[in-house]
């Protein structure tokens, strides 16, 4: 009762009571339900969560597909680049490419993102401090006026390479090359055949047995698509394949896991086993050759490799079962090369052949450079090449590979950012030539080493000029065929312009291989054993110092591959 009284009193008074407030808010709440406020907010916030402003979305622009070539390493695989608004938004392999057959290495598929890699070199740096191109030019001009310049090239045979050579000749400098593992494996033949390593290759199309001493044949060796295609068509899954791949390797690598036969041996015993095999072949007259006989007893070869003597004998027999048989080393290994010679597979169809008639061999670079005023390192040189010299070092690179002793770090064009030509890939049996035009807008103020040199020396031909000369040469020689959307013999092409048109659209010229017999080989004595430099699995097919961000899918977001150990870092 008392309650009621209180309330009526309040009722007369006009002052708001707690009760009025409660009634009011109850009404407001009830009213709100029939307004758009709660519902629209519910809807719009959910839409907002579908389009968070901080999440980047690709622009709606038409996509254009352009055929070109990968220039990140000397393999030069054919590319299908998806371009949108002047940027590469995706890469795939060029199906019509006569060598790579539409294949790329896993890293190639992420290459279009490399130009924005956090480790991209964005500015000229001098001993760690920001500098400018003018200062770099001045410093280089001064250096070359004071003494000889050594130029290191990691990708010989390009137009840029001949700019380097031209400069070296004109300025009493030296031109040196750093070869990839595949080419290094061919160098032993140089002194036995007189043909430069870079003119040699394996005629794998016609090979029946490959004995690989740790070469990652199915994991980025040579031009990936070339070998893997052969393997897939002739070998994969078959119990008695047309192409037998025997992998000699301490651990079960990708190649070993997929090879026809895998023989685990002790670390570093490749040479011993190769010599041992050669000895068995010679002693049991399994081969035509009669010498030289390797100075190693079968027992020793067995002891060092960890295989039984019988296993080695059986292996020797297998090697001659299906010939031609080539022995391929992971790196420079004279014993393995000599085994190929004993097997009689040099200068024969399906063996080691000569693809072009060039006589001059390149001098491969020695890190120790005693008397030079300046060393210029092209961006194609692997980051692990660290010159030991007192000279001033000009290091071109698109990406920063970590620690370096270079005085100058000079930002080079990145992926698809400059016009370059694509010479024959290492270890191929035929000559090829292609062109990779500049597709993407240069992301930063960059200069290639060739541009840089041309800038210092006005009467030096530019890369572009040389490429045009080469096209003209190709047209004059009238040999070989051009593989584009359709294949056409050079002889059938009307003009240089037409030829260039096709090349700029991604066509590949393939030369006619000289007869195998043109390569003569003479092995006087069994080569002394050398311990080859260790090659690191998949990354040896990839010479740029950084990996595309998406590579993390392979070795961080999955355990498909081992993380490559960072060089110098």
């Amino acid at each position, binding site marked *: 009762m008392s309650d009621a009284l209180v309330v009526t009193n309040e*009722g007369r008074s006009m002052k708001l009571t707690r009760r009025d407030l409660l*009634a009011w808010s109850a*009404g407001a709440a009830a*009213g709100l339900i029939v*307004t758009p406020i709660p519902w*629209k907010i519910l809807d719009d916030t959910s839409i907002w969560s579908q389009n968070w402003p901080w999440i980047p979305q690709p622009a709606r622009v*038409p996509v254009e597909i352009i055929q070109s070539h990968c220039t990140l390493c000397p393999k030069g695989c054919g590319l299908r680049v998806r371009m949108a608004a002047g940027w590469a938004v995706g890469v795939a392999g060029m199906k019509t490419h006569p060598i790579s057959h539409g294949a790329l290495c896993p890293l190639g598929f992420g290459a279009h993102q490399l130009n924005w890699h956090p480790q991209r070199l964005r500015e000229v740096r001098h001993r760690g401090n920001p500098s400018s191109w003018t200062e770099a030019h001045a410093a280089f001009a001064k250096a070359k006026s004071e003494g000889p310049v050594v130029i290191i090239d990691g990708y010989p045979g390009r137009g840029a390479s001949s700019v380097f050579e031209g400069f070296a000749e004109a300025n009493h400098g030296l031109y040196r090359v750093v070869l990839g593992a595949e080419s290094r494996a061919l160098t032993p033949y140089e002194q036995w055949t007189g043909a430069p390593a870079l003119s040699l290759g394996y005629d794998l199309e016609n090979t029946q047995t490959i004995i690989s001493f740790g070469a990652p044949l199915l994991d980025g060796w040579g031009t990936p698509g070339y070998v893997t295609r052969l393997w897939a068509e002739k070998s994969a899954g078959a119990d008695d394949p047309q192409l037998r791949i025997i992998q000699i390797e301490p651990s079960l690598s990708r190649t070993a896991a997929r090879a026809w036969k895998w023989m685990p041996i002790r670390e570093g015993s490749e040479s011993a086993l190769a010599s041992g095999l050669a000895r068995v072949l010679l002693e049991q007259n399994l081969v035509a050759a009669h010498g030289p006989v390797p100075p190693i007893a079968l027992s020793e070869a067995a002891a060092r490799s960890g295989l039984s003597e019988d296993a080695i004998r059986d292996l020797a027999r297998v090697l001659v079962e299906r010939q031609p048989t080539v022995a391929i080393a992971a790196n420079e290994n004279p014993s393995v090369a000599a085994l190929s010679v004993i097997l009689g597979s040099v200068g024969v169809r399906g063996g080691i052949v000569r693809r072009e008639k060039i006589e001059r061999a390149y001098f491969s670079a020695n890190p120790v450079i005693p008397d030079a005023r300046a060393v210029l390192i092209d961006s194609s040189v692997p980051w692990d090449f660290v010159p030991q010299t007192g000279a001033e070092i000009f290091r071109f690179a698109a990406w920063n590979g970590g620690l370096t002793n270079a005085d100058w770090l000079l930002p080079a064009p990145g992926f698809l950012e400059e016009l370059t030509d694509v010479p024959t890939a290492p270890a191929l049996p035929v000559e090829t030539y292609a062109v990779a035009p500049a597709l993407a807008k240069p992301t930063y103020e960059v200069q290639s080493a060739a541009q840089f040199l041309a800038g210092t020396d006005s009467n030096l031909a530019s890369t572009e000029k040389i490429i045009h000369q080469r096209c003209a040469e190709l047209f004059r020689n009238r040999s070989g065929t051009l593989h584009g959307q359709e294949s056409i013999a050079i002889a059938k092409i009307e003009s240089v312009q037409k030829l260039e048109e096709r090349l700029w659209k991604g066509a590949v010229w393939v030369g006619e291989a000289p007869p195998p017999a043109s390569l003569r080989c003479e092995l006087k004595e069994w080569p002394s054993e050398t311990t080859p430099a260790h090659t690191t699995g998949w990354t040896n097919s990839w010479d740029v110092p950084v990996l595309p961000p998406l590579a993390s899918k392979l070795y961080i977001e999955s355990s498909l591959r081992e993380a490559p150990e960072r060089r110098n870092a």
Partner: protein
Amino acid sequence: MRIGRNAIAFAVGVLVALVLGWVIFPRVLYVKKNQPVEFLHKTHAEKSGVADCSECHTIRDDGTFAGLPPMEKCAACHADKIGDSKAEAILVNNYIKPGHETPWLVYSEQPANVWFSHAIHVKRANLACSECHSTYGESDQVRPYELNRISGYSRDIWGHSMSRLRRAPHEGMKMSDCEDCHKKHGVDVGCLGCHE
């Protein structure tokens, strides 16, 4: 008496809420923006005799839709001022002469996750542009672009009526509107038929 007082308070509450929701809220939710140039479809249809939408809003050979015509298209006629309207001056001086694209505000802009193919709707289903874009093609004045502050969408997606009950034919471009039309034409494309 006691009840009465409560009822009044309650009613006041309801009223306040209604005003807030139906009158004030829409004004707060949407922010009005003006087009960079006062472009009139009607004028172009009449003066320059552009008869068909596709003359400017083309579909490329690969089926992709070019959307709004690029600046060159305008420049073809408006390289120099035609007449001396204010809009004309803005177009020529601010965009065509310096060669900037005109930053049009697209009323029917859909978010990134929506995939809409004009080719399929126009060429295969033979829908008239007005089916979705209403009579905008004949508009003789530009209306401001209204941006939803929360969702960032154009108001045209929801439609003008807040309740969505009294909205004009061909108004509204929410997913439900697409679905209704698909149902009407017996088309079933699934989620990814329209989403990226």
